[in-house]
């Protein structure tokens, strides 16, 4: 957490889909301190709604996605993102508290409790890293 300016890749907007308010809040705070715009989503549904309605230039540069969320899970969000040609290149960082059945084709998987510096580094790299 030693760097205060955001990554040089021009990554501005982060969609943060996480159902746990405490995690969501602290990650949002830290990211906003670093100058990111954070769009918090409490459920997978909210994340999908945002992705469906956002203008092209308002689309997030990185998605941080909790896998286990109620109603619409992170898995379902991931599936939706993959089916959208305009979103297929968006870096997705998965947060999870379980380690079975890891999704493939995402930028990174962080296991809870994760190190915030790792998350920051990944977001910083985010723009340059494309899912295969």
């Amino acid at each position: 957490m030693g760097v205060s300016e955001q990554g040089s890749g021009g990554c501005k907007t982060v969609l943060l889909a996480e159902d746990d308010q405490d995690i969501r809040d602290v990650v949002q705070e830290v990211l906003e301190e670093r100058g990111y715009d954070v769009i918090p989503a409490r459920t997978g549904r909210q994340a999908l709604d945002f992705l469906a309605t956002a203008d092209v230039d308002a689309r997030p540069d990185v998605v941080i996605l909790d896998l286990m969320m109620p109603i619409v899970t992170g898995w379902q969000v991931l599936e939706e993102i993959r089916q959208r040609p305009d979103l297929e290149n968006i870096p997705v960082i998965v947060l999870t508290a379980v380690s079975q059945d890891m999704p493939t084709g995402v930028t990174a998987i962080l296991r809870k409790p994760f190190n915030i510096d790792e998350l920051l580094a990944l977001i910083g790299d985010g723009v340059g890293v494309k899912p295969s």
Partner: protein
Amino acid sequence: MDQPDDRSDVAPVLVVDDHDESLRAMEDILARPGEWLRTNRCFARKIGYEPGDLLNLRMEDVVYPVDLPGDRAKLRQLFDGELDTYHREERYLHKDGHTVWVDLTVSPLRDASSKVKNLILLIEDITSRRDAKKRERLVAGVSQILLQSLDHPADMGRVAQLVVGSLGQWCVIGTIDGHGAGRGESTAEAAVAHADPGLAAVADRLRAALAGNAEYASSLASPVPLTSVAPRDDLRAAWNIDEGLLDDLAVNGALSLPLVSHDRVLGRITFLSVDALGPGELLMAQEVTQRIALALDNARLHREAEDAVRARDEFLSIASHELRTPLTPLRIHFQRMLDERGQLVTERAERMQPILQRCERQVRRLEALVENLFDVSRLTTGKMNLRLAEVDLAEVVREVAPRFAEELAAAGCHLSLDLAAGAALVGRWDRLRLEQVIMNLITNAIKYAPGKPIEIAVAPGTTRGSSPERTARLTVRDHGGGIPPADLERIFQRYHRIAPPSLGGLGLGLFISKKIVDAHRGSISVESSCEGTQFVLDFPLQGAADTAAISLPDGQKIPIGTGPGPGPTLVGCNDPGVWS
């Protein structure tokens, strides 16, 4: 059985064939079969008669029809002078219809011209002996089937098939499923077997008639044993099956016993026989029934234990997930506080640093405990996934050791490292898992040998066995009081703890460590004496089998956040003398 001679199984019987002088010829004997001349009470009672009654009968009235021709053939040889005497085992028919096995010795009394005058039959009742052997064989066979698997519905068919080879012609076993034992609400399909494969179609009809049959289902829950004198009527009443099927079953003997264990009715077994069932067969049936009931009960206990283990593992998995969630912001907040402290150089901030560090260390301890809980639930359900990469074992030790600076200092332990300078021991291993193992071993050494030096060495080694492989060998030695031999054997088992509860820990560290080492195709061994304990770990330089790894698309970057990891402000050691 009140007569003295009843105590003996040996019953000499005198038989006369020649109340008429003209009947000396064999043909006459066969034309007018012999009559009993005299018999003793013991023999008569064995086959259900009073001696007086028996004298009114002929041989063919009491010899089991199947055995008569053999008997007659022997008699002919005796009369023809081809045999002096003969000896055979055969069946007699009890008055109530069941068979009695006898060992028969027939000796003739001949007249001066060597013609047979009388026959003396020495008859020994061998039913119980034969039954015992048969019972032994049957019970052993049944036990063998039941022991092979605890999957009872599949096995009951085999058990029934084995039973009908020895006991009756039909065997029907029904079990009450699940935990509703005693209520008879749901039943598995009846296992039906017949001794004659030609009757498979009848067996199918019976099976179909019993499937979903309410009367049959409710009969399974009854704890009452039934010996039937009118099997046809009883079956009609108990099973509600049609007359045609009753005709085809053609039974004259029936015995129906509840499968009971620990006061629970688990089902019912019914033996049906063409002949009436004798006391030996009753005994056999009881023993088989007991075995089956016991096996069913074991299967139930096994199932319940498995369910309990599954429930526990599910609980552990959920619990560790739930525990990780609050740990995540907690950890981030601590990182932020420590970071903030760096921005504010004040006296108060300086004082805060050690407090924050201690708090963060406790968070890490919590994380490690949660990690262990989670690992153990995962290890019981599947294999460990390794993320393999080129790893230098000495370098891992070098990095992990400083994390323990504070704990070592607090425990008064001096840790020295001997890290095979010059020999790069690099293999394809899972770095984070190796860290976990090393941390477990250091934690144990500090816990069990406070105030004593700890030595860690990394050196080249080889595996044991016929084709030795080169390994990186990690040795962790403490100088504590050692591990009692009884504990040493079980030290790698789950939840096995040597420490008193005051020392903390879940008893999972070494269990998980061994699983990790196993997943790397490595080995871990322990030696202990009153002078200390030494763990020796070998990791083959060829690394783990590739199948153990999670396959990742090429070039994909997958950093994984873990529980215990190095915190940037915690690395380092206050006492330079600790490291060597």
